[in-house]
Every structure is written in C-alpha cells, then in structure tokens.
C-alpha cells in the first residue's frame, strides 16, 4: 500500500470540456504527478473549515500554491495588490495547525510556504517589488522567474534540493510570487535568494516540515517529493 499524500486545492471559476466559468475545486496535475512519481497516492483536499478529521486518512500533507494569504492571518491590513481567498485560508490553516501538532510530514509550496511561516507566528511582505525593488520573483503574468538561491548546509532544504552543480549549495529555482516571508516566526530560514528574499523555511525539531518558495512540481524536481514520501512511510 502506497502512502496517501493530501494536496490542498484551489477553488476558482474554471473552464474545461463543456464547462465554462464553473466554480470548481482544482489543482494543477503537476502536483499529483509529482506525488505519483515519488511512489505515493495523491488525494486532493478542497477547503473546509469544519475540522481536520481528514488527516487520519493521510500520511503526509502538501499545502499548494495559489492566491495571497489574507493579511488578517498575521494581523495586518491588506495592501492594494493583495488578492486573498478566505475559504482556503481558513481550511488550510486548520489542516496545517493539526498536522504540525501531530507531526504529520508537511511540504508547503509557494503560498503553502507562506502559510507555514504565518502559522508559526511569522509575517509576510505583501508586495516584494516594494521591498527588493525588482520583479524577478514574478517577471510577468503567468511567467516564472528563474534565479539563484543559496541553501544552508546541513538543512533539510539542502538535503532535498542538493548542493548544486558547483557543490556550493547554490541552485537555480523557478519562482512565481509577489509576496514573501518577512518574518519566519518560529521556523528556521534555510535558503535565500541573492536579494535576501526567503526561499525555504523548516522546523528542525520535526521529522519533516519544509516550505519552499519555488515550484519543484513544475520543474520536475523529484527528490523533494521522494523525501516527503519517505517521511510519510515512517
């Protein structure tokens, strides 16, 4: 029996087949395929804030990318460019808090990493270009930015992302975000872009709690998902 890995879903109007602008629960198939390729079975978790009972059916949790977090989660007013989804915020916060309490392996991707930071008491920058003076983390609508990051030696992030071609802990990643982690709360930052933007956070006291600001599911990175699935097996 393969481990079961839950992936949180988007809720957005979508068009597919005969359906036009239909309210839908959905996720890029690349997340599912990454989990499948790592030897686990993905199930998708639409937002729901009743309880976290569904975790009993799961061996690991992926908090997926998506819209901005509501700044109410870290006690701030929304900025002019902040676009949030309160239903996802409520449902995913509930799942993540319960997963952290029970030591369920957790991988946060992009928005998911930001939720990890906020859930652990941190805060976000609501619009990175205002902070770093560049849009290299999201060069344009629907366009990933590729840039270098430096990984902390010995960290979980370095273990799953590798030492890079030069063996110096520097790798290139694909990012697509206009917000970023300002304060990681109780988590440890273990990767940075050259402009200082936080690229990975983790909790070294837990078996597997990792957030990455980039998109390994779109880049065909396998080791990060294999490591999550390994943790899910124990």
């Amino acid at each position: 029996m393969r481990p079961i890995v839950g992936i949180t879903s988007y809720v957005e109007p979508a068009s597919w087949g005969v359906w036009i602008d239909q309210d839908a629960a959905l996720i890029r198939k690349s997340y599912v395929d990454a989990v499948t390729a790592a030897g686990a079975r993905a199930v998708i978790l639409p937002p729901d804030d009743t309880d976290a009972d569904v975790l009993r059916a799961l061996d690991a949790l992926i908090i997926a990318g998506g819209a901005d977090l509501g700044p109410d989660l870290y006690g701030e007013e929304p900025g002019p460019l902040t676009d949030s989804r309160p239903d996802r915020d409520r449902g995913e916060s509930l799942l993540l808090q319960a997963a952290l309490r029970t030591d369920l392996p957790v991988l946060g991707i992009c928005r998911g990493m930001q939720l990890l930071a906020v859930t652990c008491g941190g805060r976000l920058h609501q619009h990175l270009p205002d902070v770093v003076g560049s849009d290299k983390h999201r060069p344009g609508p629907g366009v990933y930015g590729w840039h270098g990051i430096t990984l902390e030696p010995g960290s979980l992030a370095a273990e799953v992302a590798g030492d890079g071609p030069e063996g110096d802990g520097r790798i290139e990643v694909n990012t697509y975000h206009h917000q970023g982690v300002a304060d990681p709360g109780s988590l440890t930052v273990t990767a940075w872009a050259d402009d200082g933007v936080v690229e990975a956070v983790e909790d070294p006291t837990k078996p597997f709690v990792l957030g990455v600001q980039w998109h390994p599911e779109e880049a065909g990175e396998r080791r990060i998902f294999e490591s999550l699935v390994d943790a899910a097996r124990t």
Partner: protein
Amino acid sequence: MSRPVIGLTTYAEEARFGLNDTFAAVLPLAYVQAVHNSGGRAVLITPDAPDVDALDGLDGIVFTGGSDVDPALYGEPAHPTTQVKPERDAAELLLLRAALAADLPTLAICRGMQLMTVAYGGKLHQHLPEVLGHDNHRPVSGPKFGFHRVDLAPGSLARGLLGESVEVNSFHHQGVADPGKLTATGWCPEDNLIEVVEDPALRFAIGVQWHPEDTTDHRLFAALVGMTSSS
C-alpha cells in the same frame, strides 16, 4: 466519532482558470459542497490507473459526471457523438469494482451511473435523441438542464430515500439500455428511460442519471454519509 471521508472522482483535463491554462484535476464545486453540507469530508480522487489504494482511507465514494463511457467496454463501436476518456474509464472501473467488492457505500451520478451499469455487464444507448426522438435529457437550447419526473419502484433504496417520485435535472445524451445485473428502480415516465439503478445485495450501491449535487435536494448525499457513519 470523526467525520466520514467521502471520495469524489475527478476530471483530469486541460483547464483554464485565472492565468492558468494547464492540465488539471478538476471538479465542479457543487459536488464538494453537497458532501460538506451533508456532514461528510470530501477528498478528490484523480484518475491515476492502476490503483485502488486511494480507497483505503475512504468511508464512501461518489463516481461523478463527465465524458461518455467508452463503448468498447460493452462491446460496441463508437457513435459519432460519443466522446471518451479511456484513462478515466480504466481508473474508475478499477476503483468502482474494488469499492463494490468491499461493500463501500457508493453513489454514482450521471456518467458514474452509466459506468456502474457497464461494470455490472450492462449496455448504454450512445445517443438518446436517436432512440427517444427528443432531447429533453440534454436540451440543445434553453436552460442547461432538462427537468422531468422520475417514478421510483416500491421497496427500492431510492423509494425509501426519495419517496414515490422526484423532480430531477438531467444533462446527458447517453442512457442505460440494459442495466446488466443491476436492478432498475427509477424511470422517466415520459419515455421509460432508466433513471436509477441499484445493487440490492450491497449496503448502499446506487446510481442516478440526474445531478443531485446541482440542486438543493441533497438527500442522496445525506444517505451516503449517514450510511458510512452508521457502519
């Protein structure tokens, strides 16, 4: 007592949402809301064959609507209007057979009902307008759904849940020609098309041709969730 976890099979198709145009696992939110409003917790099951381990954590499962079932599965050539997703058929048939073998409470909707029929050795009409002479089950103009009555057989699961008859919303161009080893328990009185099939040997295995998720009548979902929580 924790909340029953109900699996919903999904489409895997090219989808457009926001700035994305990508291959996605996608399902109308109405199915999710129907499960949540009925006291269950919805999880989405993608068509990744061959695989039944997704059933492990589930207390019940819903086979959802979608494309036509591949007529090769009941030994017929495809009608020109038939549009199939063979990967989804294969994955869902595997899940459906395993769910039925385990007597997992199962609700099958529209395409799901047709797939259930095929799994029990039945056959489908591939294009109802040619069989019935009208398009009331999927109007080509006007509102999306066709609306009509369904009469339910005395003593059936459907009758116990829904009463003598029910007004339903239809959106399908194929239909059940032969229910195979299932029992037909509901019909459209205007054309005698089969609208409900059941396996009375199982605790809860029922297929309906209409779309209860897209109505405010969630009795079938409530019954599915209730069945799982009483087990």
